[in-house]
């Protein structure tokens, strides 16, 4: 029986190696091109140090026979990351922490005679709320006098979106969805308010940086005329400066409708805990290994799963709710939880070269179970989605479903209908059950005591 090898579609730019999957495991082939640097990563003690600081993925060497091409130096196995997320799906603080981690890694690298060859945000993944470098082939020997080759990339992937979110609007990190190599600096420079020109750090790393990029875009053979060496001390100072610049970027937190959600619900305290108990019960029936909580808000119900040691993606379209969720998880050092910004009405598309480099939400599934609590009315009413379309999509991304039906009489639905014509004659529990029964089998249902809502436990047909 031939076991299938699948190459990672986004792993092609680097001659140093490539990632592939086989039999459910994740491997990285290290090519001969990278032999010296890979050995130095280990010999210099950098890898050990980064592992100790929990800044890098662990690896173990496996048989060279697993290599998928002839220029392999060795093959290593790395742990499988439960859910790959992308920078545009991160909240402000997640991006900020990823930036800080990248700089810390670069600082440690320099201290061990190495330097990062690239500083793309896609090299970082979150494992239990900690940003971790997943590209083990990202280091090269530090050449005395060489400027940081990844400086431009760092400014575009991290500094620009964070500055825009801090000074202009939190939603601007979403620009990363469109710009796969970070936000162009001239665009960031144009969008940032004039007062940032008076911030020495932002003026240098973004505004002047953008100007010199444009000025020297076609420098050609004149390049040699200019001094192109940077002392180690100066380089360290730049890294320090970037660190403190990142640290200084903060959000002006404003209240949104939904972060007040749990104080202004139409639940009494007892019906809230009744709902929790039913969700717990249904999770015990399904026994999922992974859960996606869609429309999770600040993750109150996600935590029922994550505390039960189930890996849970806690997704919401409200950037601030995800921010609050992440900050709480980070502070309490929570495990098994990954808060992410996902707009279900327009989930992350497949993107990059040939639309294959970065996977859509659907391609990163199917998940064992979805929690769709207090969600259906937003999809059906605010987004005019018929029940059947919702059911079909859920069946494509998940094997099981815990879903809450919110009837029209519910005050939250009345709120949504307040300013529009009620064209939802079909919106009732009967048609809900009928539509979902096309794709799922309802194995349990229960009315939440003290409310008009019903919770369902469903298995995909």
């Amino acid at each position, binding site marked *: 029986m031939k076991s299938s090898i699948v190459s990672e579609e986004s792993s092609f*730019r*680097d*001659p*140093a190696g490539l990632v592939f999957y086989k039999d459910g495991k994740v491997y990285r082939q290290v090519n001969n091109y990278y032999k010296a640097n890979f050995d130095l990563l280990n010999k210099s003690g950098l890898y050990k140090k980064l592992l100790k600081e929990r800044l890098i993925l662990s690896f173990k060497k496996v048989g060279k026979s697993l290599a998928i091409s002839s220029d392999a130096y060795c093959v290593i196995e790395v742990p499988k990351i439960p859910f790959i997320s992308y920078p545009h799906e991160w909240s402000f603080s997640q991006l900020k922490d990823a930036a800080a981690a990248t700089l810390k890694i670069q600082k440690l690298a320099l201290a061990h005679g190495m330097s990062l*060859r*690239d500083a793309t945000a896609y090299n970082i993944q979150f494992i239990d709320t900690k940003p971790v470098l997943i590209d083990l082939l990202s280091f*090269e020997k530090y050449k005395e006098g060489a*400027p*940081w*080759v*990844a*400086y*431009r*990339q760092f*400014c575009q992937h991290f500094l620009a979106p964070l500055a825009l979110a801090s000074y202009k609007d939190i939603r601007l990190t979403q620009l990363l969805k469109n710009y796969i190599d970070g936000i162009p600096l001239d665009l960031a420079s144009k969008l940032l308010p004039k007062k940032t020109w008076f911030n020495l750090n932002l003026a*240098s*790393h973004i505004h*002047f*940086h953008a*100007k*010199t*990029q*444009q*000025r*020297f*875009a076609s*420098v*050609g*053979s004149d*390049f*040699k005329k*200019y*001094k*192109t*060496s*940077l*002392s180690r*001390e*100066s*380089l360290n*100072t*730049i890294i320090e*400066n970037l660190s403190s610049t990142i640290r200084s970027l903060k959000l002006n937190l404003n209240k949104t409708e939904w972060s007040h959600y749990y104080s202004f619900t139409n639940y009494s305290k007892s019906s809230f805990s009744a709902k929790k108990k039913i969700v717990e019960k249904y999770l015990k029936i399904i026994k999922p290994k992974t859960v996606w909580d869609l429309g999770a808000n600040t993750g109150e119900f996600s935590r029922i799963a994550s505390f039960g040691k189930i890996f849970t993606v806690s997704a919401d379209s409200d950037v601030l709710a995800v921010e609050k969720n992440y900050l709480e998880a980070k502070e309490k050092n929570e495990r098994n939880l990954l808060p992410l910004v996902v707009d279900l009405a327009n989930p992350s598309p497949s993107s990059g070269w040939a639309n294959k480099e970065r996977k859509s939400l659907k391609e990163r599934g199917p998940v064992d179970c979805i929690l769709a609590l207090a969600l259906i009315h937003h999809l059906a009413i605010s987004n005019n989605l018929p029940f059947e379309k919702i059911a079909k999509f859920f069946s494509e991304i998940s094997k099981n479903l815990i879903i809450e039906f919110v009837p029209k009489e519910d005050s939250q639905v009345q709120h949504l209908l307040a300013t529009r014509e009620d064209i939802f004659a079909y919106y009732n529990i009967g048609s809900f059950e009928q539509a979902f029964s096309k794709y799922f089998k309802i194995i349990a249902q229960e009315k939440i005591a003290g409310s008009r809502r019903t919770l369902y436990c469903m298995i995909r047909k």
Partner: protein
Amino acid sequence: MFLYFLLIVAIFSFPGPVHAYIDPGAGSYLIQILIGTALGGAYLVKNFWKNIIAFVKNLFKKKPSE
């Protein structure tokens, strides 16, 4: 024909940063050097004053030798 020859010569004599896996950008290298030099200078000045202050503090801490 001669123009093509010139073009090829020009392309191959473009120095660029060697062995760079990603394009660091000529402008990015230059601004980095400018910032690094400026910061390095500021750092030296800061350090200079720190050393002066530490030296003066030490003078006042010194006990008369027994």
